[in-house]
């Protein structure tokens, strides 16, 4: 199902994702796009809607520059560009949460130019560890559910929500299983494959994504059982830190030079699937609690929990280096970076910072930097 072993191409990935969405539509289904992993997708799923995370495009920006300045991240500019070009016309709606300043204003620009379908701003609190903000989040999620029901004319029943929770939990559990498996049995699943599987989970029908994950895990277990995979040499193991990682060629280069990514705190990684929803009790309450308690994004305050997650991962003893993939103009991540990096280096873990705009231009330079970094890390082992 995935593009295994052929070299990752985001365009192909996107084409496949669009094909699946159109198939969903041709069966009478609705599709809603969204940014950020604070959108309670379970609610959309319970209303029978396919929710798709917007991951941008590697294409050049042609329409968005007339509407938004270039000092905003490519994820925002690319999504707007796709919308303006009509590439998202198949979607029945778009949900943009109030996370960073760019996202907040993106909603305004979106509304001014594409005020159609189910277009909603999800204005969530920033202080997620405070009771008052948690109450507000409960209200916001409740309102969101009512808006979905009203717009799509579908009352969401409790049992439907509970079912969606199970579907999403299964998917997240599988992603976590895959994560643990590749951490324990390095090399059994390539980093590229593993992260492509997360991108698929973010954009495909969940049931289909889970099928794929099950087959990947089964195949990996089979390999382990048959002991087919012989480790030729110890791999250099990395944690990848950042927001969205869609240009998986970075991982290909890491692997090419004998490295492997075993851990991450990405928005298109653990931050999406690490935490499950409680399956007992009131489903709306359980869903809200999950989004309150989940591994937080740097757009939430305080920022320690994500950092602790990284330190904990490093303390497991199998991480040799940290690669930061930082989206240009992403203020929340860029503010965290210098002190976070220093703390990691104080743990005697080398770091590499890569600037990305949904991809890295200058592949040769990138290859050299990654190769040099792997040599440095290996020297220190």
């Amino acid at each position: 199902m995935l593009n295994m072993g052929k070299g990752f191409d985001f365009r192909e990935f996107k084409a496949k994702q669009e094909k699946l969405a159109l198939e969903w539509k041709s069966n009478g289904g609705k599709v809603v796009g969204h940014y950020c992993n604070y959108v309670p997708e379970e609610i959309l799923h319970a209303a029978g809607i396919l929710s798709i995370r917007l991951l941008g495009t590697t294409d050049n920006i042609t329409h968005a520059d007339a509407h938004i300045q270039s000092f905003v991240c490519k994820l925002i500019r690319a999504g707007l560009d796709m919308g303006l070009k009509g590439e998202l016309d198949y979607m029945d709606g778009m949900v943009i949460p109030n996370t960073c300043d760019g996202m907040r204003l993106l909603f305004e620009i979106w509304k001014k130019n594409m005020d159609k379908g189910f277009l909603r701003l999800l204005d969530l609190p920033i202080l997620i560890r405070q009771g008052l903000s948690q109450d507000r989040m409960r209200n916001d999620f409740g309102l969101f559910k009512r808006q979905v029901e009203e717009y799509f004319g579908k009352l969401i029943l409790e049992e439907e929500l509970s079912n969606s929770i199970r579907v999403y939990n299964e998917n997240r559990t599988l992603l976590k299983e895959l994560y643990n498996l590749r951490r324990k049995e390095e090399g059994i699943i390539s980093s590229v494959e593993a992260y492509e599987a997360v991108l698929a989970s973010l954009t495909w029908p969940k049931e289909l994504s889970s099928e794929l994950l099950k087959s990947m895990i089964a195949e990996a277990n089979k390999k382990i059982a048959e002991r087919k995979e012989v480790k030729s040499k110890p791999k250099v193991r990395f944690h990848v830190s950042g927001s969205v990682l869609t240009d998986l060629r970075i991982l290909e280069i890491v692997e090419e030079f004998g490295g492997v990514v075993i851990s991450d705190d990405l928005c298109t990684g653990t931050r999406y699937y690490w935490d499950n929803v409680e399956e007992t009790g009131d489903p709306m309450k359980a869903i809200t609690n999950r989004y309150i308690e989940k591994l937080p994004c740097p757009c939430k305050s305080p920022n320690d929990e994500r950092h602790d997650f990284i330190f904990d991962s490093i303390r497991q003893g199998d991480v040799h280096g940290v690669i930061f993939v930082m989206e240009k103009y992403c203020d929340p991540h860029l503010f965290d970076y210098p002190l976070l990096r220093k703390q990691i280096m104080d743990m005697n873990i080398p770091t590499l910072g890569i600037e990305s705009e949904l991809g890295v231009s200058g592949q040769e330079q990138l290859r050299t930097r990654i190769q040099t970094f792997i040599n440095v890390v290996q020297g220190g082992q």
Partner: protein
Amino acid sequence: MGNQSSPKKGRALKTSYEASTILRNYWETIHAAKKAGKPIGYCSGNAPVELMYAFDILPAYPENYAAVVASAKIALPLVQMAESKEFSHDLCSYAKINLGEVFWEGKGKPEMPFGGLPTPPDILLTTKIPCITQVKWWEVLRDVYHCPMILLDAPMLEGTVDNQPSEDQVDFVVDQLKLIIAQLEDFTHTKFNEEKFFHCLSLSDQAGGLWHDIIDLRGEAVPTPVGSREMCGNVFSLVAMLGTETPVKFYQKMKEELQYKTWKKIGAIPNEKYRLLYENIPLWYNLEMLSDVENKGAVFVFETYLRYVWGGRIDLTDPYRGYAKKILSDVFLNMNLQLRYDIMARDIKNYHIDGVVFHSNRSCKRYSLGYYELKEMLLERLGIPSVVIEADHSDPSGYSEGNTKMKLDAFIELLEERRNAGSRG
């Protein structure tokens, strides 16, 4: 907000000369307080400063101080120092100036105006109302100084015609304020003095009211008695001293002078032809930009930055809710695009404005995004032309003074052509 450098002519208002004394006194007081062991809090823009005064915590403003540094034209080495410490070039230059000072290493540090910010801060107070930058920057300060950080969480104004937040939003902010009061009680080990707080709110409201009168007086008057450049130097006490007597006295005096000048029809420039609106934070390192246009008969008579970022009225009959409403509704950056347009459209009419200058400020996404939409809306719906200049509020690197001048000159020529065409037609 910043002190002005080398004015090419005297101030239009005598009262403006007092601004530098206020600034100097403020800095002397805060350094003396620090020396005496009194608590100092670093406050960000739009944080509830009246509460700090109510608890006898003196607020220092790293943001405002960065503007002072930029207007003293010493921002660059500090920005570069922050960048050398891995803070991205693309982050807000206010933050970079401050972090350049915080992380300064080695020789060559510029002499900091007023002796620098008092360090270390004892407490940090911030809010997301104007931007998330203030939260992320304050988290860095928290990690550096290991002191408590208080954050006022607030929703963004969805916008209604009368510019009022919803009751739920007000409730949320009121609850937050009460929580902050409890946190400050813990921090100071003192009981909250509500009466003192209400007095601070009353002073804040008076200053806000006077400031609005001042904005109206100079905006409505033809010719306008004072331009933007001078007024940017007069806003400091509204930024940092709301809740004290100082801004009330200062703005009372300024208002009276303006009343006299507008009655006498004494203009800031001899032959006022074009009235401009300035949108966004000024270029602190090049405030001349705001007065250079005066040679061509144009004058900036109104700025959203001066009117809708600092100060505001408070309904004192219901102090907590009144204060929450003010915090939520009087900040341009916390408004949605439609509301920003509605307010600009109203002010353009009230202040007889001919054209708008947008500063697309790479350091302030929250202020700047949406300008291309606003530009189009102003032209299509009101026939008001505008120009967008690209710059940064405090980082002079990459700024092209020549290009900006050319753009502004061409814009004034356009206004002239439009007027000529209009008078012919």
